[in-house]
């Protein structure tokens, strides 16, 4: 994981469930790039085409609710999103992201799509629109998994 991230933000609402992130009928593949084409297709069919690698998603409450599909995280990874910030995350989405080494931040941020954001994971600080937000650090256990690049590397390293 990079200690610093800068990018453009895309703002989504509350309760973005996994059926919205990637509709079930596309679950016939686990190819990140293929899945990424259909990100949020029902809500905004053009969004996937506009997102650039390194961009950051800012969402409201309960992001990633619904099914256990890891495809939801793969879709977001396939877009090259560097971090998802949300007021809160649904449980399995949270696990999947950590296990795939995708940084998540729980924070309530006011922003508009297109704003520039910078995130410093060492200091747990977010800068956006000249405003500073702090967020809670991960417990060490989870940090080690993310820093290892995901659960598989972690398990190899720590020999469960």
């Amino acid at each position: 994981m990079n200690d610093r991230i800068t990018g453009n933000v895309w703002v989504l609402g509350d309760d973005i469930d996994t059926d919205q992130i990637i509709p079930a009928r596309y679950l016939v593949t686990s190819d990140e790039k293929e899945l990424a084409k259909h990100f949020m297709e029902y809500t905004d069919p053009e969004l996937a085409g506009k997102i650039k690698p390194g961009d950051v998603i800012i969402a409201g409450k309960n992001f990633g609710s619904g099914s256990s599909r890891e495809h939801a995280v793969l879709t977001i990874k396939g877009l090259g999103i560097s971090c998802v910030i949300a007021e809160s995350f649904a449980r399995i989405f949270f696990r999947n992201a950590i296990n795939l080494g995708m940084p998540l931040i729980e924070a309530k941020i006011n922003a508009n799509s297109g704003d520039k954001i910078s995130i410093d994971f060492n200091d747990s600080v977010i800068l956006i629109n000249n405003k500073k937000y702090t967020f809670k650090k991960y417990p060490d256990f989870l940090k080690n998994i993310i820093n290892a690049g995901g659960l598989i590397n972690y398990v190899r390293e720590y020999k469960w």
Partner: protein
Amino acid sequence: MGKTAVEKVFSKKSHTDSYAGDYVVADVDYVMVNDITGPIAVDAFNSIGNAPVRDKIVIIPDHFVPPKDIKSAIQYRKVKDFALNNGIENFFDIGNGGVCHQVMMEKGFAAPGRLIAGADSHTNTYGALSSISVGIGSTEAGVIFATGKMWFKVPETIKININGKLKKGVEGKDVALKVLSITGHDGATYKCMEFSGTAISSLPVNERMTIANMTTEAGAKCSFFDTDDKTIEYLNKRVRGDYEIVKSDADAHYESIINIDADDIEPSVAVPNSPANVKPLSEVRVEIDQAYIGSCTNGRIEDIRKAAEILKGRKINKRVRLMVVPASQEVYNQALREGLIDIIVNAGGYFSGTTCGACLGGYMGVLGPGEVCISSTNRNFIGRMGDKTSKVYLANPSVVAASAILGRIASPEEI
């Protein structure tokens, strides 16, 4: 300080003295994957390079089987090959399986005190049999294939007491919807929902399964019901191996307690687009295009019996297609033996083999633009069963059957 049932199971399985909030690495009794989540788990497993922990692995293709197209055939083939090439005994193929959660319970994997991880969100269902069963992702399932272990955060528990006598027409589904109307769809996120009270003990095991199944819609990590005579009767016919009954201590710490009077629970409908968007059945009168009975929520033999009782000697409304999809091959076989399939097809319904199929908008009953479905399943998100402009209403199977006859959402009492 005393412990909740979930704290006890995680302590035992991780060989630690753990309480809510602790991170543990625990031994998992069984890990289950299906045809959607399995292929990624297989890749994760292969990249680790260990030998598989064979006896713990359960593979149940269900979402898009029999394969609905070439891509789903490839995914299904991948988990099948993995099972066959690695000598995985617990592989439940077409003809011997069904919806993964139903199979996990009827084939005796779910039992009191066990820790089960399933790569499907409705793994919560086996709490009805006093298991601690949690939904996980695919990569972590693959890691369990290779190590038999997984990391968990021990959850807080919300206790839900439901006391009194349930009204006529109220089924497990209505109890689940009542609870969701209180918690909302994220009110139990990361938590265990533990159910007790006289109304709960009066319910048969299959209706407890419906309630446990829908705790997922409140965001819960798992559910828990105490083991009683009914649980044991169910287990006696099916369980594999030994099990150990667990129970929360009287002085255990609960994050919160919800008390519900059974008298306040009515036959209900969850209206689009959230399972927590609950209205009394009497207030919802919407014309429908499809009626669906099936899924891990309400596709058991008892549900199909209820539907058949209403459909017997009647015809469904012309505007409706009625889909009845048993939750497993065993349920199918039983329905066949009892003559229920006859009743349903004579009423004009379509009775299919077991699959998840239309429950997730996969195939066999996908909704077109603007179509409306009354469904015994657990989710009514935007586009869940088809086009994004289609709508799904959730209700108990008796209401679904009655609605199929009248062509609009209806109470069985109107028949």
